[in-house]
């Protein structure tokens, strides 16, 4: 339990200085020399500020090309170097799913890392997308914040500049540091042949090694979650000690928490960052305590070195943030433990959420909150000095509804389509939870799984791949559209009728809005899965 409170205190304490530093790196006029080299090499015109459509197109073009590159790498890895186990090319459907998964910051894994992917694919394809997909979330958040800050203009900043700054100054240095700390704890980082050793009973045990630490570091920091090994951060080589576990778990929420302050500093109102962080913690802390409470004594799928509490803490954190790495098997959680992890995703990944995207996700909820509050008192809603009008609310609705509109039909089809149903491992309501979890995870770009489900099947690979793409980019587009529309507006000075968006009252209202949206969309499904199972469990 002490580990839980220590983590919460560190997240809150580190978020502000880290946010300040990230803001300094991301929101500045001057370019560093290294950055200028990058711009010259890649032909970026730094003085060009993009309007929202250009920004969105740049994001889409960059990621669709990334999708093609990852897919090609997977398919051709059999002919490429750095393939010590001589894995053949990945099957087309699985390769498509994995490419969608990694470019959308989901990192859902239909494959087992150590039995499918060559080192080259893991490095060039997957590690790269871990960085740039995380960076893109932060870029879109910055564009969104600039839209709120601007007055009667169009420019939201330059995507390539944001991408470069974020990757070079934020993600790379932190990952390097964390990777080396993890190696110190025993995480392998090597490009030599895997070790085979004799066990005490004389059996041969082959232990696949590889460039593990470098990938684990960014998968934790960038809310990615795709492990080097099948068992992800349960694996003793990805997460060998309680200390490595503590550091990796800390890394899950570090940048998403800091993003609250980065956003607030960019729009020029510090209090907003604390208000958003408070709303997130107001849901995170009680749900995490519940998860820890119900998991005590449940050892199935958990590692002894972490214990039940640190496993439940991780499970809550990784689903609150759209990280998706696991240090215990979520499929084996108690019904209420599984309920917490599902709920965290189905809130729409706004309790911390992915780096950058969690923040713009929760700001969409803030806009709903000011809109509904505005309706109650009959005033045009405002947020940070901008009038929120019909167009913005339409886009907010799109951005919020796209997720349930993807997840629920996918669940519906999966429970009646025989091949999708056959993928289930556990019987009864828990089997339904496996399906719900898979759809929720892909539909929210989380990536963790109730892994009993055989996900490497055509339905989950193809439909899931599309769902991951839509849920990522069909939220980014409305978010940028709102930014473009708000950027064109004047600032209205705050008056006596303006609803302050950083008071404790508003934080409570925001939490209520998040819970109501999540509850209205998903409580029937949650009732059929984990809640029904809990009742059976009690019997």
């Amino acid at each position: 339990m002490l580990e839980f409170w220590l983590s919460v205190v560190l997240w809150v304490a580190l978020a502000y200085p880290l946010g300040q530093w990230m803001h300094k790196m991301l929101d500045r006029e001057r370019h560093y020399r290294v950055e200028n080299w990058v711009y010259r090499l890649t032909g970026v015109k730094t003085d060009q500020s993009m309007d929202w459509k250009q920004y969105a197109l740049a994001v889409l073009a960059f990621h669709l090309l990334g999708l093609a590159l990852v897919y090609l790498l997977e398919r051709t890895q059999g002919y490429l170097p750095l393939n010590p186990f001589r894995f053949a090319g990945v099957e087309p459907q699985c390769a498509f799913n994995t490419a969608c998964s990694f470019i959308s910051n989901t990192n859902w894994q239909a494959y087992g890392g150590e039995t499918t992917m060559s080192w080259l694919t893991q490095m060039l394809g997957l590690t790269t997308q871990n960085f740039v997909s995380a960076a893109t979330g932060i870029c879109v958040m910055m564009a969104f914040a600039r839209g709120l800050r601007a007055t009667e203009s169009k420019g939201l900043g330059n995507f390539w500049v944001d991408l470069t700054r974020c990757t070079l100054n934020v993600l790379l240095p932190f990952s390097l540091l964390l990777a080396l700390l993890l190696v110190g704890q025993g995480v392998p980082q090597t490009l030599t042949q895997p070790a085979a050793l004799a066990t005490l009973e004389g059996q041969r045990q082959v232990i696949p090694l590889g460039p593990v630490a470098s990938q684990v570091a960014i998968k934790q920091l960038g809310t990615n979650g795709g492990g080097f090994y099948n068992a992800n951060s349960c694996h003793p080589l990805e997460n060998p000690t309680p200390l490595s576990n503590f550091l990796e778990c800390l890394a899950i929420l570090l940048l998403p928490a800091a993003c609250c302050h980065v956003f607030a500093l960019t729009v020029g109102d510090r209090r907003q960052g604390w208000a958003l962080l408070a709303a997130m913690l107001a849901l995170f802390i009680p749900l995490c305590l519940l998860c820890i409470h119900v998991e005590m004594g449940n050892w199935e799928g958990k590692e002894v070195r972490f214990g039940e509490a640190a496993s439940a803490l991780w499970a809550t954190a990784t689903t609150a943030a759209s990280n998706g790495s696991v240090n215990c098997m979520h499929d084996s959680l108690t019904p209420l433990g599984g309920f917490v992890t599902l709920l965290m995703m189905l809130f729409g990944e706004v309790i911390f959420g992915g780096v950058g995207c969690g923040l713009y996700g929760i700001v969409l909820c803030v806009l709903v909150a000011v809109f509904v509050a505005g309706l109650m008192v009959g005033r045009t809603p405002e947020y940070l000095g901008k009038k929120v009008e019909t167009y913005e609310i339409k886009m907010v609705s799109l951005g919020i509804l796209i997720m349930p509109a993807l997840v629920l039909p996918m669940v519906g089809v999966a429970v009646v389509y025989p091949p999708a149903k056959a993928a289930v491992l556990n019987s009864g309501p828990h089997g339904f939870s496996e399906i719900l979890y898979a759809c929720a995870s892909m539909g929210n770009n989380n990536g963790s799984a109730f892994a009993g489900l055989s996900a490497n099947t055509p339905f989950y690979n193809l439909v899931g791949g599309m769902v991951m793409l839509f849920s990522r980019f069909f939220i980014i587009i409305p978010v940028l559209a709102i930014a473009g529309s708000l950027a064109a507006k004047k600032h209205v000075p705050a008056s006596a009728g303006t609803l302050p968006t950083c008071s404790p009252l508003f934080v409570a209202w925001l939490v209520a809005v998040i819970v109501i949206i999540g509850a209205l969309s998903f409580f029937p499904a949650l009732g059929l899965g984990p809640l029904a199972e809990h009742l059976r469990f009690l019997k």
Partner: protein
Amino acid sequence: MVITAIRQLLLWTLVCGLLYPLLVTGLAQAMLSRQANGQVKGLVGQDFSQPGYFYSRPSATAGKPYNAAASSGTNFGPNEPKREEQTVRFGKDAPADLRYASGSGLDPHITPEAARYQAERVARERNLSVARVEELIGKHTEGPSFGVLGHARVNVVLLNAALDNRGASK
């Protein structure tokens, strides 16, 4: 714009996908080569079937238990009848961590209670006193790191190796 996108993608693929892992590898090999090459003893669990050894937890890795080349958990939910089948080796009153599989299937640890639970059998098989075996368990018990992180544990691989070494020196 597409040209810029291609150039940016290639550049970051080189920087994040090649230079960064190579830099980490170089630094790790220079400063921490034992850890970086997976040479730390007892990190990955092993299967034990001889009664003179402490048993590890059940393992769901593909092919055979503790197959380090294919990590996996059972993924059984709490109501799943199959979940109880893996507990046959120990019976109902064994500590829970010994009855149920870990998430990786490669957990090298058991709880101190699970080790003490097996002490009598190991002592009998090796013609040692139970007190001597429990003393060894005590020596190999680690508390939570720094008093707060993780769980108290006994590394089965290292404990069994110590049992063997003890026999050799006798």
